[in-house]
């Protein structure tokens, strides 16, 4: 960090807290694919994704628009109702009590019980979906009553819930139009935590907000993780958001994960050329002013992903094999490895799908097309 300026005082310069020691899996996405039959062919929007989220862990999903991140989280919650949908794979969820449930096979009734109660969802732009004619307090109560809490008990809990997300109890009596964008987003998070879920899925929760408000929202999410022992799956195209909040990150490209790992190593020593390109495309006031490259070309269409590695036509490291054989997402052997940014020491727990690492090249006949 050869900075052009001193780091502002409020930034802590030590490494983020390591993921909590309990490595108990909470949500296991296993080879999940979501395809849509369209008049123009099969759109393979999410295509063979595997990712595990542990209890009390914050996992970030990053990727450009059209990479499939939103479809992925919608599938987890079974809220995709597109008629020509084809899914395969499993999403195993471990509830507080009872056996694991495959969300892909769960009945509507089971899903209704899990949503909000166990898995809370904060969709993109949801702060603009608050009911304009209902007081904030009642909107929070609604969800709880739906999940079997008596109206009086639900009402009694509202002040505490609001306080958890940094809002004063009097906000309960206000209407959405009386709130700023940041406050509305807090209300949405308040609704999400109202039933004490074990997983919050937040899709671009800070995207339309001003930076100082964004900072407060991210801090609130970090605080909730510690206080409520909740895991958070956060979807954002904005890498700095992940850098500030996540324990682990999964980078999505063209419907697949191309790299996963702990946030510090993945950002500072990316393995996949797409991840490396992404890191090199972000301007930072802490970095000296040099021309950034960006990534040439644009996201391919899910109707027609490129053959072989889906990134090969934009990749500065593409080899012959990349045009034909899709690499698989596998753990990368630790030790000094040649990466897009030169030789770096690769630590444990990192996965990538790239032929730069021979372990990622499937053995003949072992993998699909």
């Amino acid at each position, binding site marked *: *960090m050869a900075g*052009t*300026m001193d*780091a*502002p*005082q*409020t*930034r*802590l*310069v*030590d*490494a*983020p807290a390591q993921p909590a020691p309990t490595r108990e899996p909470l949500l296991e996405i296993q080879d999940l694919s979501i395809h849509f039959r369209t008049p123009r062919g099969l759109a393979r929007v999410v295509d063979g994704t595997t990712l595990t989220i542990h209890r009390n862990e914050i996992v970030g999903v990053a990727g*450009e*628009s059209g990479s499939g991140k939103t479809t992925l989280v919608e599938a987890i919650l079974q809220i995709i109702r597109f008629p020509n949908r084809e899914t395969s794979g499993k999403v195993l969820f471990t509830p507080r009590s009872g056996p694991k449930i495959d969300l892909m096979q769960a009945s509507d009734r089971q899903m209704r019980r899990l949503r909000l109660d166990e898995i809370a969802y904060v969709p993109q732009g949801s702060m603009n979906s608050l009911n304009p004619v209902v007081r904030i307090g009642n909107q929070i109560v609604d969800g709880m009553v739906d999940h079997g809490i008596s109206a009086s008990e639900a009402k009694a809990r509202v002040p505490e819930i609001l306080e958890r997300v*940094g809002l004063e109890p009097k906000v309960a009596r206000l209407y959405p139009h009386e*709130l*700023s*964008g940041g*406050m509305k987003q807090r209300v949405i998070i308040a609704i999400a935590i109202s039933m004490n879920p074990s997983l919050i899925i937040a899709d671009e929760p800070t995207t339309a907000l*001003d*930076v*100082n*408000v*964004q*900072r*407060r929202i*991210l*801090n*609130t999410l970090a*605080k909730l993780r510690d206080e409520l022992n909740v895991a958070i799956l956060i979807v954002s*195209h904005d*890498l*700095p958001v*992940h*850098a*500030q909040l*996540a324990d682990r990150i999964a980078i999505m490209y063209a419907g697949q994960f191309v790299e996963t790992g702990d*946030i*510090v190593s993945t*950002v*500072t020593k990316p393995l996949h050329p797409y991840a490396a*390109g*992404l*890191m090199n*495309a*972000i*301007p*930072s*006031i*802490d970095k000296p*002013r040099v*021309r*950034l*490259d*960006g*990534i*040439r070309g*644009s*996201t391919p269409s899910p109707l027609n992903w490129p053959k072989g590695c889906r990134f090969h036509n934009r990749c500065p490291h593409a080899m012959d094999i990349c045009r034909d054989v899709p690499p698989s997402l596998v753990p990368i052997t630790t030790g000094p490895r040649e990466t897009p940014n030169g030789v770096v020491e690769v630590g444990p727990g990192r996965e990538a799908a790239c032929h730069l690492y021979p372990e990622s090249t499937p053995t003949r006949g072992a993998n699909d097309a």
Partner: protein
Amino acid sequence: MRDTGSTDTPILELRDVTTIFGSGAQRTVANDRVSLAMAESPARILSIVGESGSGKTTAARTLLGLQPPTSGKALWRGKDIYSLSRREMTEFRREVQAVFQDPYGIYNPFYKINRVLDMTIRKFKLASSRQEHAALVEEALEMVNLRPPDVLGRYPHQLSGGERQRVMLARAYLLKPKVIVADEAISMLDVAVRAVIMNILLDFKEQRGISTLFITHDLSAAHYLGGDMMVMRRGKVVETGDVDSILTNPQDPYTRLLLDSIPSPDPTQRWSTDLDEIAELEEQAGLAEHRNVVVT
């Protein structure tokens, strides 16, 4: 450059511009005595930075001739933009180009991409033959790193956001403008593409002497582009000067708050989670969170 005065007349200038929307309880002062000037040469980039509702878009619209100010003057080469003759207006529209936030909404979905370029060439009579016309289109697309076969003959929905925004920059480039007013031109684009767009603006400045008025909420983007910066809050200019000196030594508490709130892309440089600390900064900046929302 034709008949107008010396080079020290700014190409674009706001002089004490105040713009008020609504009246009574709805009265909003979107711009409060805002002044700025952009010199014709050397080309420079001026970034206006501020949160939503700070009045940066109103200032840009005033300079584009789209929003007459309540009081004060908006000047192009020393002439009032809102009382230009028809001939001057055409010249103004050539020299000052706009690129907006939404590269999706700006195109008519029924027309091919070529149309925005063709219409521009025709309206401003830039080419005298078909060959010249084609050469101009090709040059403009090359300047924004697009291959003509990738975009010509295609419809807007077949292009990505970054490609569409680049076609908008190519259209602006056709007119050899003096200034491009880019209002949040990168905020709807993917991070990987943002740098590409900013690099084009830097190329325009360095190779073609085109200045940019860059409206953004993103301080890191302003830092990347360099040049000058103006920080706005609630309609007022709170700080103005060279980007580097503002970023290394912010004078106004609001600038300090913004600067401190930028998420660092480096996960080893995390914010403290001390909310009181932010609250203090916000208070100094006169920004309690419980405030009335202002119109953008």
